[in-house]
């Protein structure tokens, strides 16, 4: 899904939140059965809180933003370690390697929509590959930005199927190169009851293109199952989100017009003549 936000929060498009929820739901079985869960680039943990129903004994939340990790700890309900670290920084990566080497096994590391925010990602990948060689399971995702040709201003690198291809030779041979597809659909309920029923993916169009690439490697990732996080659309939230965006856009468009007018006036008005002495 195309978006231009840096992180998920309460004002995010509900469909985009569901997008994130699905990824955490994919990793949930691994997280649930781990002794340590490390969530890299945890953000506000809005999606993690919805998808991860059972956390392991030790939960480690890492993000570059102190504000985000604090919000994540609140969202997950306490008991989590929080660390403010830059995953493109060599010292912080050394810290992460040490943490992963010393943590209780089994370890699950999630890094959803993180890699594209880093100035350099090769250090983090090496660190994660090393961790998987020591027994950790790693699940990470990157967006298929290139398909739309969009450029999120917070993304430092651009990802696509060829970009994922470039990683193939660098990641462990057992790596699963998964993909996430956006679903569209509708649900008919005979009694008008909006309680969710069993979800099923009805079909796949010939032009299906992944919205995200989901890579997983480690001893237990072979057990990961496909997951579809489908729930009844929250129209109330969607209406709020869309109207809010429309109102904001209209307000700022108007303001830009006013500012342009002022600029035109300022540049076309001749400088006031000083009275002759």
């Amino acid at each position, binding site marked *: 899904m195309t978006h231009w936000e840096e992180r998920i929060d309460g004002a995010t498009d509900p469909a985009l939140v569901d997008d994130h929820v699905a990824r955490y739901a994919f990793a949930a079985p691994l997280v649930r059965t781990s002794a340590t869960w490390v969530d890299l680039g945890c953000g506000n943990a809005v999606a993690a809180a919805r998808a991860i129903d059972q956390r392991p004994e030790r939960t480690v939340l890492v993000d570059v933003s102190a504000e985000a990790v604090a919000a994540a700890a609140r969202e997950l309900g306490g008991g989590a370690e929080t660390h403010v670290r830059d995953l493109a920084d060599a010292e912080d990566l050394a810290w992460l390697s040490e943490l992963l080497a010393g943590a209780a096994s089994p370890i699950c590391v999630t890094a959803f929509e993180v890699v594209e925010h880093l100035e350099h990602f*090769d250090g983090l990948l090496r660190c994660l590959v090393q961790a998987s060689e020591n027994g950790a399971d790693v699940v990470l995702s990157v967006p298929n930005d290139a398909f739309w040709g969009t450029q999120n201003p917070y993304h430092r*690198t651009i990802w696509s199927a060829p970009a994922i*291809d470039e990683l193939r030779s660098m990641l462990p041979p057992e790596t699963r190169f998964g993909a996430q597809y956006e679903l569209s659909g509708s649900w008919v309920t005979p009694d008008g009851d909006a309680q969710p029923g069993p979800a099923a993916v009805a079909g796949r169009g010939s032009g299906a293109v992944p919205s995200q690439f989901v890579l997983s490697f480690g001893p237990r990732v072979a057990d990961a199952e496909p997951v579809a996080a489908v729930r009844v659309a929250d129209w109330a939230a969607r209406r709020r989100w869309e109207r809010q965006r429309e109102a904001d856009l209209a307000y700022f468009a108007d303001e830009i017009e006013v500012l342009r007018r002022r600029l035109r006036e300022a540049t076309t008005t001749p400088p006031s003549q000083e009275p002759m002495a």
Partner: protein
Amino acid sequence: MKVCFLLNDLALSGGTGVVVEHAHQLATQHDMEVTLVVCGSQDGAWDYRRLAGVRVIDLAEARRDRFDVAVATWWRTAYDLFDVPAERHAYFVQSLEERFYERFATERLTAALTHTLPVAFITEARWIRDLLVAFAPGAQVHYVRNGIDKEVFPVVHEVSRSAEGRLRILLEGHPEVWFKGIDESVEVLRQLTEPFQATLVTGATGYQSPEVVHRRVGPLTQRELAKEYAEHDVVLKMSRVEGMYGPPLEAFHRGATVVTTPVTGHDEYVEHGWNGLVADWDDLRGTARFLDLLARDRVLLHRLRRNAVDTARAWPSWDQAGDVMAGALRAIVERPMADPRQGAARMLGDILAGTVEQGLERRQLIVEIHERRREVDHLQGELAKVKGQIDDYHAQLLAKGDELSAVVHSPRWAYGGAVQRLLGGRMGRAMGRLLEHPVARRSLRRALLRLTSG
């Protein structure tokens, strides 16, 4: 980490530019100690800001050093690769370079052999990666796309509408390099029916531009080239061999689309009908019709150009490409070396195939030599005949000359001369009148005959 790239020379070329850019990224962004080893000519030093922080040495000096990984970059440098002491040896394959040479050129074999060396491979295009995986089973093959210098080729903010006027077509390449297809491009231009304006960008200074090329520029710097792309609607490329196929992608950054052959590398980013048009091989007429279509349908042209810009926006910068190259080199150093036996069978097969091909060529040459010899023998026979005839003529001529000489020196010839003189004076005039009478004429002839024959 200490890494070196082997280059044939530092002359300005696309392939060298890619290596220099990777070297720059590794040295400045990834804390690697990077050396460029020049194996061939030391001329034409790369006067380029990207060399800052990168050591440049010759092969002799490299032999005295030691590296974590040494990387060959052009097939010829692969022959020097194992002279450079290193923990790991790798080969950055930018194209299957044997394809640059025409059939029976010995370089086809010597270049092809390098693809089965027991080294790790890095390449910039998926079509090359897939072939290398097949050529060298078990070898590490890393796919690292070339980045684009987004400062030199900045993505245009907005594609300007090219609603009217001639279709602005740009041709790029060296006309004397057969696989660049410049002659075919010119032929396509000749078959256009819609108005167009064609520019040829080439480094070939001695080339006589054909009449359909309205403007010729070059050699150009990369920034000048970027400006040219921005001033054109479409790049026409009829190439037959390409590696990663950089020029149309650079043009995409500047808002031009492409009409191209389905050349190797085009599938890295060209989507027919989305950001460019892909013509069939050898279909010059069809290619011309594509350009005519763009000249007439300016909405389609605008759509292709806009999508080309989107494609360009999503293409990695050199920063991102540098990350992947760093990752690939580290993986090469950290992983065990490929089993040299894996590629040995393939290499032997290649040598055998190459020698068979060379043998065929040799046989063909021998047959040709025999034919020529027969022709020469035949011609020599003919020549001998003609010579004999000439000798006969000479002999006859000499004999006649002798006869003539004898006549000239005879007393009768001298007497004849006296008569001639006599007939030339007054006596002659009188005789002339006398000879008007037929009886006198007959008598005089008989008398003269008696005088000269006796």
